[in-house]
């Protein structure tokens, strides 16, 4: 039988860290993605260029390198800032960058770029006539966005979102490298201590597959919800 040698509870804790990290990063990336998509579709040249720069740079550099840059570099950046604060105002504070926050920010920042591309394509797939119809009903831009464009965009965006989420979930494993105790790190520690890498790594792999399967099911339900009125007539 499966013997986790007392590492069971810690592995579960690590799984909790993985899931909350993934969900929070997803939330951040969705916000960033919507902002990026809006910037790319806006008439402002500056916003468009900035958004393009952001998505190009982020998608051209490995996740791990970005993570280390933001985590190790972020600490120095914060130190410089607090030193400056001390020199100018005499306020002495020390901020230690929390690995969890660094993880959420980095993963959110990386996947915001991918989400932006997904959202942009989805927004463009909404027929222009729909927006005109909304305007004809006297809706303002904001109301048209929330009532017409957003719900219809989601139908087109969901397959891409689900794909991004699966990649994001697997990317969370990288935070173990910068020192966050997610389930991968705990499994790696347990493997070294007990000299049984197969047991722990396979347990963690199964947990990842479980999370992926559950989210696949959730996304299928969401897809059904946002497809109401499509493809049920025939």
């Amino acid at each position, binding site marked *: 039988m499966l013997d986790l040698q007392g590492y069971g509870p810690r592995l579960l804790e690590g799984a909790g860290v993985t899931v909350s990290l993934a969900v929070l990063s997803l939330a951040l990336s969705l916000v960033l993605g919507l902002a990026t998509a809006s910037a790319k579709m806006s008439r402002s040249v500056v916003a468009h260029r900035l958004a393009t720069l952001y998505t190009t740079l982020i998608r051209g550099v490995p996740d*791990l*390198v970005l993570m280390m840059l933001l985590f190790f570099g972020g600490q120095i950046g914060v130190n410089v800032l607090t030193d400056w604060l001390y020199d100018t105002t005499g306020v002495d504070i020390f901020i230690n960058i929390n690995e969890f926050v660094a993880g959420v920010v980095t993963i959110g920042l990386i996947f915001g770029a991918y989400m932006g591309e997904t959202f942009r394509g989805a927004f463009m797939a909404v027929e222009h006539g729909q927006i005109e119809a909304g305007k004809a009903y006297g809706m303002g831009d904001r109301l048209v966005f929330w009532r017409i464009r957003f719900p219809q965009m989601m139908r087109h965006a969901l397959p891409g979102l689900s794909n991004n989420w699966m990649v994001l979930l697997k990317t969370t494993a990288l935070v173990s490298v910068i020192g966050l105790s997610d389930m991968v790190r705990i499994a*790696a520690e347990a493997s070294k201590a007990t000299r049984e890498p197969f047991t722990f790594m396979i347990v963690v792999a199964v947990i990842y597959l479980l999370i992926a399967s559950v989210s696949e099911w959730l996304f299928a339900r969401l897809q059904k919800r946002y497809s109401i009125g499509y493809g049920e007539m025939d």
Partner: protein
Amino acid sequence: MQALLDRLDGLLANNSIFTLQTLSFYGDGLVTTVQLVFLSLIIGLVMAVPLAIGRSSRHGIIKWPIFLYTYVFRGTPLLIQLYLIYYGVVFVEGIQESWLWPIIKEPFVPALFAFTLNTAAYTTEIFRGAIKATPRGEIEAARAYGMSPALALRRIVLPSAFRRALPAYGNEVIFMLHASAIASVVTLMDLTGAARFVYARFYAPFDAFLFVAAIYLCLTFAILYFFRFLEKRLLAHLRPMT
């Protein structure tokens, strides 16, 4: 060459971090990264073709094991696969006595092994999608010409499937380049490994990681343009006529 090195040395005279020595770390790292990515992609590609054909088979006994393999390798983080192979290889019975051990105990081999299995799984699914998308008429036409299924596969299905798979495969190549950064975790001195070394030695995260990010960015764009060029050549017949 010597003159060039001297000039570079002069250029770097006032820089304490980017000396010839650290640049040579990055250079070696670049070679390791390119070797690792190139080898795993080539082996993965060779593995993926028969696997994709098997995955498209009608027989469950061929289809399902391949599906299980791609599902597991696409559904779990590459880092886990790497750890499993890197830490697990020692426990394979008799491996430490075998003549291959001096090569296997280097981190390069387990990393190559993990990356190859990973990219083969993704490539298998890409090819399977491309094979499935073959227009029925093409297969029927091949049959009408009296081709056997094997001949039709070789002459009709695969050539057009490879072309259709090209854009998705280009993404996979870039994905592998980025994923290869993970190899630094098992102490391999690839590009990211070099950056981590320089960071640890000089405590200069911005210099170390921004420089390596720029190299990755250049590599990414080189791959991107290479695949655009390939698509232009190989998919010319699919472009809309102007």
